């Protein structure tokens, strides 16, 4: 359940940013959580609901972008989408890959008031 630590970090980052902007409430938060980031969606939502109580994020609208996995085969130099870290290159079947997208774990923006 590392999702709880993730949520706590988000609350921390968002609260600091809100205070830096001289605001007192967060109306919306936009996150980027890649498909290969290691965050389980259901656990995240469960932790989110519990942890935002009595924080400036309590009533915030949560928007999550979920970039799909994208890898480059370093032998064929082609890009292809992957669902799992062990997906092979569709051309050569190899695993000599560079992950380009899907590992994102970011707070993108806030709407504060």
């Amino acid at each position, binding site marked *: *359940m590392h999702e709880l630590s993730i949520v706590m970090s988000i609350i921390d980052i968002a609260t600091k940013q809100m205070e830096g902007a001289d*605001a007192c*409430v967060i109306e919306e938060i936009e996150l980027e959580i890649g498909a290969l980031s290691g965050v389980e969606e259901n656990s995240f939502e469960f932790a989110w609901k519990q942890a935002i109580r009595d924080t400036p994020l309590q009533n915030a609208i949560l928007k999550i972008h979920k970039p799909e996995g994208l890898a480059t085969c370093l032998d064929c130099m082609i890009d292809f989408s992957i669902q799992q*870290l*062990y997906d092979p290159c569709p051309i050569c079947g190899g*695993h000599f890959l560079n992950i380009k997208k899907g590992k994102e774990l970011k*707070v*993108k923006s806030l709407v504060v008031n």
Partner: protein
Amino acid sequence: MCATCGCDGQDHVHGKRIVDVEQDILHQNNLLAERNRGYFEAKNILALNLVSSPGSGKTTLLERTLMDLKGQLEFCVIEGDQQTTNDADRIHATGTKVTQINTGKGCHLDSQMISHALQGLKPKGDSIMFIENVGNLVCPAMFDLGEKERVVIISVTEGDDKPLKYPDMFFSSTLCIVNKTDLLPYVPFSIEKVKENALKINKDLHIIEVSCTNGEGLEEWYSWLKSKVLAPETV
């Protein structure tokens, strides 16, 4: 008066606005991990983060290593468990400096816990620091502690498809130790298959097979350790 927070409107700006954040969620952990890394580098300490599921034999591997290499290398250990000091007691019995972190309900160590533990432990320079993470193949994968290398341990009683089931941990490790090889005749575990699966996740993963019971393969692990300590830093 401000309808949102009840202030007199002097303290802060009112009105909806967008704040661009673009910050990594694990930023704080990563910053502290870099601080730990700097500490280790300055004191020439090789920090290794040992990760595995519970019961793969991490503590036994450490006990064996600490006893066998006593006098050859300097060691220090940080033990991570939810509860008890059992593991730290076992390490302490080998005469090695050790500290125990109890995470309570926490499922992983983070860089702040390590930073805190280092203050009390005061490890010697020119040494090896083993950080035995909480037995868990999922959560510790995301948290950099400031280690130089991450070592994932799997035992032959666990199933050779484990790298595929828990890919994140194998993806982020540099060495994989397959432990309890003395039990191979009794379990349906294929060394070839586990290697194949692990390399699918991480093509650069180095794999060493050991048995802490009969000592098989331990020399290769010790050579790996020594090569990491003695290798000059490439800049």
